[in-house]
């Protein structure tokens, strides 16, 4: 049957066999280890069934870091292949699969879980809540993301990876031109994790609107919570578009509908429009929480209140609106004429204004401050000039007549890495270092952290700035090779050196975790950075219920006020706390989604239908379930508080 052809192992190359063996060995190792150390029960009780936002946050964090290395491996292979003309490391097909999975992994399975990690870890603490609004839905979101990520990652050993680019433009992504099951993986893996993201969006919006501590009006919310709120509003509006586009793409591939094909009335440009109506807001879903993290970090380490709080908020609101009005700048060259291009050129450039406001606000926050050069602050300082360069090249791209020359070239690649790496990735690493002590109880080593920062920054500049030049010299993006005569060789070699430095930098993060775990002091108190917002007002490690007594809010920096101006944060007696019960259903649903997704990818209808029925059974069961959660008694709370060092 056709099925067996599609099942064929891609690229029967030693590397793929080696990865298969490695995957099997690692899996056996994990299972054996868990059994030997009798950790199955612990794993199930504490992690697989948890509905605690902090633990879910940590699971997102670990997955994001793993995916960073998966995507990074792709990146270094690509740069190696391009490091010299006529390189023979990878063939065209292999290169195409790698840049496709690199893009998808980095945006969907690395950056997204990274921001969800911070939203989960921090938002409930910053607003003084016990958990998110729908804890069990939150667990389901995570397991759907995880199922999607795992599904996507097995593609390269079973059946072949998608090879039409992370933008997956049709008709190239249709059955006629992309015959392997690769693009099916793209459609279903992103679909499954996308449903999870949409649910997180709804969950977080509800949490932030409904569960703020008494006294916290909207204009008294800490900046990270504001950024998370706006990002989640964007998610709620943007992700349904992606869901619909992916369904249409899936039916085109599996059931020969003709939405995006070019025969029988299909329109390839419809895909491009759908993709970017989701895709452009998506980049702001990533960058706004990053802006929020930078705001927290810069004001903490400048020992100053955030300058222009309300203009920060309004600029984010404006950015979120504009982000839905610019998608066409991704295909200025599709022949829509001068008028349309002019409109989208202007709306795109308009985004630079609120973005500029934010840059100035951060600068003025440092002005008259008392600046400490800690690792999180170094990332934030490095971010300002680098992101400014990324932003101004964005304005250059927005001039549509000139974009005819930049489009699809390395210049574009340089631009968006210039915004995504110092903007999003640096923010995540800064946030990781900043919040690490809160969640793990020890500080990461500052010296190693600084080495990481410099390796990444120097590596970044070397890796990406040359691309601005090769782009203007006519190097198109996504070319797996080029000839000697083009003269791109030297600058691409430089890029490879930069990428290698960055790879070393990422490895030093792992080393730092290991080193600090062994050597760092565990006696750091609950506020090691002398920070300002509410998440630092509770114990380290954070108890399950976050705050024994609900905090009383008077400003956006209530904790700072309680430290310096005698504001009383916690009033009244400790009372019984209501918490949700753990549940294995989200995890089970994740597995069922994985199986159903896999079956759809290979058109195995029987398990696919069984899987779908299983999903509906899980949902139906939930509606009949009588689970009212449980109560933590006053005595238990008092004991915990005592153990953690005095009541708060």
């Amino acid at each position, binding site marked *: 049957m056709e099925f067996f052809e599609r099942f064929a192992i891609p690229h029967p190359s030693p590397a793929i066999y080696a990865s298969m063996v490695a995957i099997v060995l690692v899996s056996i190792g994990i299972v054996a280890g868990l059994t030997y150390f009798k950790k199955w029960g612990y794993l199930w009780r504490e992690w697989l069934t948890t509905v605690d936002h902090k633990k879910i946050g940590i699971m997102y964090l670990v997955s994001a870091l793993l995916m960073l290395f998966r995507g990074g491996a792709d990146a270094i292979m690509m740069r190696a292949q391009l490091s010299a003309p006529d390189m023979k490391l990878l063939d*065209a097909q292999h290169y195409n699969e790698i840049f496709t999975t690199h893009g998808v992994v980095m945006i969907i399975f690395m950056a997204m879980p990274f921001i969800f990690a911070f939203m989960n870890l921090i938002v409930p603490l910053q607003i003084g809540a016990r958990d998110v609004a729908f804890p069990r839905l939150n667990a389901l979101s995570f397991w759907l993301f995880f199922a999607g990520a795992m599904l996507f990652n097995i593609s390269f050993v079973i059946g072949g990876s998608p*090879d039409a*680019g992370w933008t997956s*433009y049709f*008709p*190239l992504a249709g059955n006629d*031109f992309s015959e392997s099951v690769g693009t099916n993986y793209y459609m279903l893996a992103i679909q499954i994790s996308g449903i999870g993201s949409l649910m997180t969006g709804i969950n977080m919006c509800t949490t932030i609107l409904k569960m703020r501590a008494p006294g916290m009006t909207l204009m008294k919310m800490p900046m990270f919570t504001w950024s998370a709120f706006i990002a989640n509003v964007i998610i709620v509006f943007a992700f349904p578009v992606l869901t619909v586009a992916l369904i249409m793409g899936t039916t085109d591939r599996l059931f020969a509908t003709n939405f995006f094909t*070019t025969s029988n*009335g*299909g329109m*390839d440009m419809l895909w491009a429009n759908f993709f970017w109506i989701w895709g452009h807001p998506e980049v702001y879903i990533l960058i706004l929480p990053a802006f929020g993290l930078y705001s927290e970090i810069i004001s903490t380490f*400048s*020992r*100053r*209140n955030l300058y*222009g709080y309300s203009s920060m908020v309004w600029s984010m609101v404006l950015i979120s609106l504009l982000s839905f009005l610019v998608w066409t700048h991704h295909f200025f*060259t*599709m*022949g829509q*004429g*001068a008028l349309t*291009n*002019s409109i989208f*050129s*202007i709306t795109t*450039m308009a985004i*630079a*204004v609120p973005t*500029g*406001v934010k*840059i100035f606000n951060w*600068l003025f926050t*440092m*002005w*008259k401050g*008392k*600046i400490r*050069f800690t690792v999180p602050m170094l990332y934030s300082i490095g971010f300002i000039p680098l992101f*400014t360069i990324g932003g*101004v090249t964005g*304005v*250059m791209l927005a*001039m*549509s*007549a*000139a*974009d*005819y*020359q930049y*489009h*699809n*070239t390395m210049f574009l690649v340089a631009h968006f890495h210039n915004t995504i790496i110092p903007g999003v990735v640096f923010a995540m690493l800064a946030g990781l270092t900043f919040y690490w002590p809160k969640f793990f109880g020890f500080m990461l080593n500052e010296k190693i952290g600084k080495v990481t920062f410099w390796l990444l920054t120097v590596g970044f500049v070397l890796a990406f700035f040359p691309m601005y030049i090769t782009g*203007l*010299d*006519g190097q*198109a*993006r996504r070319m797996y090779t*080029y000839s000697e005569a083009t*003269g791109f060789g*030297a600058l691409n070699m430089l890029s490879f050196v930069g990428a290698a430095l960055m790879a070393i930098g990422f490895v030093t993060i792992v080393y730092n975790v290991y080193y600090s775990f062994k050597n760092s002091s565990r006696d750091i108190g609950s506020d090691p950075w002398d920070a300002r917002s509410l998440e630092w007002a509770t114990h380290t490690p954070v108890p399950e219920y976050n705050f024994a007594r609900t905090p009383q809010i008077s400003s956006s920096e209530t904790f700072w006020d309680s430290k310096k101006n005698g504001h009383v944060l916690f009033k009244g007696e400790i009372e019984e706390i209501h918490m949700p019960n753990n549940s294995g259903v989200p995890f089970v649903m994740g597995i069922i989604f994985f199986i159903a997704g896999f079956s759809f990818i290979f058109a195995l209808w029987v398990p696919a239908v069984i899987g779908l029925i299983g999903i509906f059974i899980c949902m139906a069961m939930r509606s009949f379930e009588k689970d009212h959660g449980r109560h933590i008694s006053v005595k238990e709370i008092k004991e915990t508080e005592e153990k953690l060092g005095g009541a708060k």
Partner: protein
Amino acid sequence: MIKKWTLLTSMMALVFVLAGCEPLLVLDPKGPQAERQANDIILSIGIMSIIVVVVMAILVFILFKYRASNLPDDYEPPHIHGNKWVEIVCVGVPILIVAYLSFVSVKSNYIVESTPEGYENQEPLVIYASSSDWKWHFSYPEEGIETVNYLYIPTDRPIEFKLYSYGPITSFWIPQLGGQKYAMSDMVTTLHLAADEAGEYMGRNANFSGKGFAENTFNVTAMPQADFNDWIEEVYQTAEPITESQFEELLEPGHLGQMTFTGTHLEFSPAPEHAHNEVSDEDNNESHEHSNHENHTEDETDHSGH
């Protein structure tokens, strides 16, 4: 004006030096459209560098002055609220810059989307450029010839490319003559270019289109009209006519060298001029006739040109 040009040339010089002295393709324009785009690029690089330098200068100043080690131990930063004037400047200046760039951008949009400046009163040479996996087919309906993977064009004459594709979306790009535009299978897009100077230029598909994408290039040779006419003449003496079955073969995925034919595939496999709607039989005939008709009259003009 002089100021602007010194700025432009010095910026160009800077970029060239950075790139190892060879002019970058995009900044080495050989036609009016590419020149307009290069000017916009240089202008925006200039303005943008000023912004970056200003931000960096403020940053370095602040970091230097307000670093903790530079301040007394008992220094407590003040609580500061916004300042109206500072905020007006921080919003106003970017708005002015963006407004100016928008103005330039809109003007350029209309320029690159119409017949190149200085060539308005000439009849453009129409060339159909279609892509297939991973080749370019160029049809000259006026001259009644077709080439594969290479393009001869006359200098000092506007050229109107009609772009479409026999497969994935591709992007037709000759950096030194002007920016790219997409070629799609269900519609025809138009790109206006012109070459001021004779010479050889690189052309390629810039939009990823599968395995053979990297090698999906073509050579462009621009030459005076007289040489161009000689070339046409020569093609008629040496090349074979293109047939439908042969053309179908050419469309098969793969790479080919350069080829030359008399006649064009437009006669039996017309371009999808009626965008996006399913073409009814009637329409189909009409467009067929239409293009035949065009061929005919243009054949005449062609002959009168000899």
